[in-house]
């Protein structure tokens, strides 16, 4: 039964984006390149949702600056379980070009558990889609 459920559920991952102080490069890559008609992730059942309460997979971009950290944590807490976090771009992984900046205390996985890292500055659309596919595999096992 659980396996049957997992095989159904994995076809409907809804995606939510959090911008944690990104330079917008990764956001452009996520919103307008990876998920446009050309690559069409809707055929995998993915959907962008506007509300964190509807989300299954969270894409976080940006180096988690001091100002935005509290808000990111709050939004993260609002996402109903089971959920999976994908860190998009080099920023949330190590700080990237903003590394050792005065406004960055630590990288993303010091605050919340990160399931998939997609490195790149910004990553290619194919890499982002691949990261989402890996996230779906992790996510379905949580049901």
């Amino acid at each position, binding site marked *: 039964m659980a396996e049957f*459920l997992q095989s*159904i*559920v994995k*076809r*409907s991952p809804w995606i939510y984006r959090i911008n944690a102080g990104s330079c917008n490069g990764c956001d452009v890559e996520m919103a307008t390149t990876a998920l446009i*008609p050309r690559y*069409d992730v*809707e*055929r995998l*059942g993915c959907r*962008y*949702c*506007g*509300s964190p*309460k*509807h989300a*299954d997979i969270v894409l976080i971009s940006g180096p988690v600056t001091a100002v935005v950290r509290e808000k990111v944590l709050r939004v993260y807490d*609002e996402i*109903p*379980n*089971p959920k999976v976090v994908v860190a998009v771009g080099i920023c949330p992984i190590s700080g990237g070009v903003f590394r050792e900046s005065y406004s960055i205390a630590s990288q993303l996985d010091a605050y919340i558990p990160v399931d998939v890292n997609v490195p790149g500055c910004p990553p290619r659309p194919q890499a982002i889609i691949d990261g989402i596919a890996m996230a779906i595999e992790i996510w379905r096992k949580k*049901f």
Partner: protein
Amino acid sequence: MNIADFLVNALLFPGGLFAVLLGLFLTGLDRKIYARLQRRVGPPIYQPCIDVVKLSQKEMVIPKTANYTAFRLAPLLGFAGMLAATAIIPVAGIYSGLYQSGDLLVVLYLLSAPALALVIGASASGSPYSSIGLSREISIMLAYEVPLLLVFFTIAMRVGMALGGTAIFSLSSIVNFQLSHGSLLFDVTLLPAFVAFLICIPGTLGVVPFDIPEAETEITEGPLLEYSGMGLAMFKLTGGLKMLVLAALTVALFFPVGFGDFWLVNLVWFIFKCILVMFFTTTLIRAMQARMRIDQAYKFYLLVPTALALVSLVLTATSFRVG
């Protein structure tokens, strides 16, 4: 009508299970065609079923600021209203509706149940975005109900006067009248009313040019913002049912005539007509239009469809006085 018949009608065939599945199928088809219009592959047609299953397995987060009871019960209210509506609307050649008189007005009331459910749920959730969404939902509802009521009244009058009496609001009489006298769609005086009714459908459904209450890029899905898990699944089911109810209502009011007496042929023909209505009123317009502002939509509904419906009303009234 005995109790067993009633239960079958309300829970299995036109209402209940069948309606829920058909509603989900229509939603899925809508998404598929929409994707094809954008030259995408699109999700499979059964995608909405998967979504509902998934949502029912997710946690339901209830905000601390929410009114617990109202927040939990609101999705059920809309769902129940739509289920009742599916049991009332007759399908020509298969099913003749639950009540004998007055049901067109009941349908009008039931049609506002999902919108009211959204309003109750949104106000109970205590989120500022939801309250913006709910004020928009109420204004657009006020705007589209005027032409809707006028269209209903025109049809009731047309059928009633043709039968030599006053307005007849019974849906089964309206359908029976068309089965013996031909579809109302081919009546020139009712053509403006037909167009007005079609224009009202996207507003009632809240799809793209009129999805102002739920604008997800702007007020993050408005009234649905705080809903997750089962509550959201209920709203998705209600949305599918609403699409079905509106399509079935269009078919019943304007072109219910089927082929012969065999139920299977009639059923397939009915589903085909529902798909046609959905395609022209929802999918095509959704793919072609961008979202309006709330004041634009409000003015649009109070001007265009209302004027069209009034034209039909006057034409119908005068044609019978002269003739």
